[in-house]
């Protein structure tokens, strides 16, 4: 079965997109898996990293996917040539985009359409939003095409984050080792708990890890990490290795024609080694489960 990983936390800036990129590229480049990246965040940072998004001409500030490379205006009369994961919430077809990496395809965000789905409050519609992504990743053609699906979620506890959690087999919570961030861990664990209640007991959602991100050599970060590692409730979930605060991660996000993966850095590069050791632990937890 295809592994579906959701990176989720309700606080912004914790490293959801960084984690999503790291896991997608580790699965594709290091493990040779066929990977589908799904961007549920209206901010579209995950998509922007792999594709050249365009600004939405109507909703200023929002982003829309570029024209699909396989789009032919003469033949595809009933398609406008753009495809976003948001389409599934509108009952429309989705067509993944190729990226600069041969094993990674992406279903990008469409800011405005995703914002509309996130703003849904009516109960009947809400249920559709919650379950639509799960139905999508469970389609036989999706399961056959991809081994590994990575979902990036918006910084909220709203319908899109819930959709991501309902769709996933495994969930990862990235977090800085700061006071407000740890509140964020707590918030996400509520969604994990709810989902644990809702799934069949014999096939639970796997909380594959709480990952300490952007860690600096200060006692604040060290103390919080050590405590999470010693608390009975969280010690099994917190990943032993941390991702440290490094300029290289920011630099890697600035792309020219094609992004450069951290796993394409020289083998002894400290950032590559750090990411490999973290991914190794997470993948082990993902593949040992279920």
């Amino acid at each position, binding site marked *: 079965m295809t592994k579906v990983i959701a990176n989720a936390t309700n606080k912004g800036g914790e490293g959801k997109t960084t984690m999503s990129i790291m896991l997608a590229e580790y699965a594709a480049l290091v493990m040779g898996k066929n990977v589908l990246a799904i961007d549920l965040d209206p901010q579209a940072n995950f998509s922007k990293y792999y594709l050249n998004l365009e600004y939405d001409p109507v909703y200023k500030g929002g982003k829309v996917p570029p024209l699909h490379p396989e789009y032919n205006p003469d033949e595809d009369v009933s398609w406008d040539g753009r495809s976003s994961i948001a389409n599934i919430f509108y009952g429309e077809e989705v067509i993944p985009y190729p990226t600069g990496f041969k094993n990674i395809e992406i279903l990008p965000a469409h800011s405005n359409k995703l914002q509309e789905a996130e703003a849904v409050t009516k109960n009947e519609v809400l249920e559709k939003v919650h379950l639509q992504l799960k139905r999508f990743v469970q389609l036989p053609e999706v399961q056959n095409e991809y081994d590994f699906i990575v979902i990036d979620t918006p910084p909220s506890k709203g319908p899109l984050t819930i959709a991501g959690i309902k769709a996933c087999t495994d969930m990862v919570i990235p977090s800085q080792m700061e006071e407000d961030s*740890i*509140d964020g861990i707590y918030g996400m664990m509520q969604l994990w*708990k709810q989902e644990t209640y809702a799934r*069949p007991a*014999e096939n639970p959602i796997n909380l594959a890890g709480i990952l300490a991100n952007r860690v600096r050599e200060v006692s604040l970060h060290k*103390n919080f990490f050590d405590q999470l590692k010693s*608390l009975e*409730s969280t010690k099994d979930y917190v990943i032993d290795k941390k991702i440290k605060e490094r300029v290289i991660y920011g630099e890697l996000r600035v792309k020219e024609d094609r992004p450069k993966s951290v796993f394409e850095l020289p083998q002894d590069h400290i950032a590559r080694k750090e990411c490999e050791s973290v991914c190794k632990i997470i993948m082990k937890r993902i593949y040992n489960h279920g």
Partner: protein
Amino acid sequence: MAKKSFKIRGNLAEALGDTVSSARNNAGELHVEIIPLRKIELDPDNPRDLALSFEDLYQGILKKDDSFGRKTAEQEALASLTKSIKEQGVINPIVVYKYNDQYRLIAGERRTLASILAEKADIPARVLTSRPDQLKLSLIQWIENIEREDLTLWERLRNLEKILNAYAEAKQKKATEISPTELGQLLGCSLQQGVNYRHVLNASDELRKHIQSGEIKNIEKAAFIAKSPATLQSTLTQACLNGSTLSELKKISRETPSINTKPGRHNAQPKINLGSTESTKVAKTIIHTVLEHESFKHLNDRFNSIRWDDHKSIAMAFRQLVKLLEQA
């Protein structure tokens, strides 16, 4: 300067602990599946009140069926539920457990029947992996039914008796020994409601007959009658049948001269209250006088540790004395 040290707030650490343990303990508790109606069967070990069967709905009720009239009436009573299911589907999932490749119904018989009538193919269900024990089963049925307005007092009472027997068996005591407090905790209702149920469970046969026929529907009135002296019960029952309110029943009870030997609850032994006193001296006199009696002198050893300045100690001794006298 001392190195700074930081700590996760205590309540957050505790809340994280609660979250994890609750998730681990309740995994799958709210899992809802959509299952085909055709695969649902009734639990043969679970007595039911309806005559209508699944086959009746699929094939139509047969004219030659002995219960034709009753079944037709039951089907008609399902009309409004059927209409709502046609329009909105089943909102509250039914509860079933897996039995071979079928599902056996624990709760939601009417919803299932109405879904068949609404020509649905499937129904949302909480699926348990095995048959829960009798107590849990009865409790699920109780909780499922508590909100239902069409459930009669008699049906409630029957469910309650099932729970009580299962609970008593689990606790290895008699059903009559279960206190209203325990009952309240078990059912998640108030102590007052627990007291009411306790009384009604002890109702006399006559009273039960009227509850069963639906002539007495109100639990407060039924409880009041059940706890009244036996001599008064038929008067009160009659008044209740004639439409008396609870306060009118209470008035009748107050105005009827009562007998001192209060026979209390059904199947409980009549008891005589020996009264109470604030004076330790009076208590001491009674106990000593009895123990001086020829027939009871041998009991003296048992009472030489009474602390005569302590009301509690004296009360306990007095109770013990009464017990011994009863046995003598």
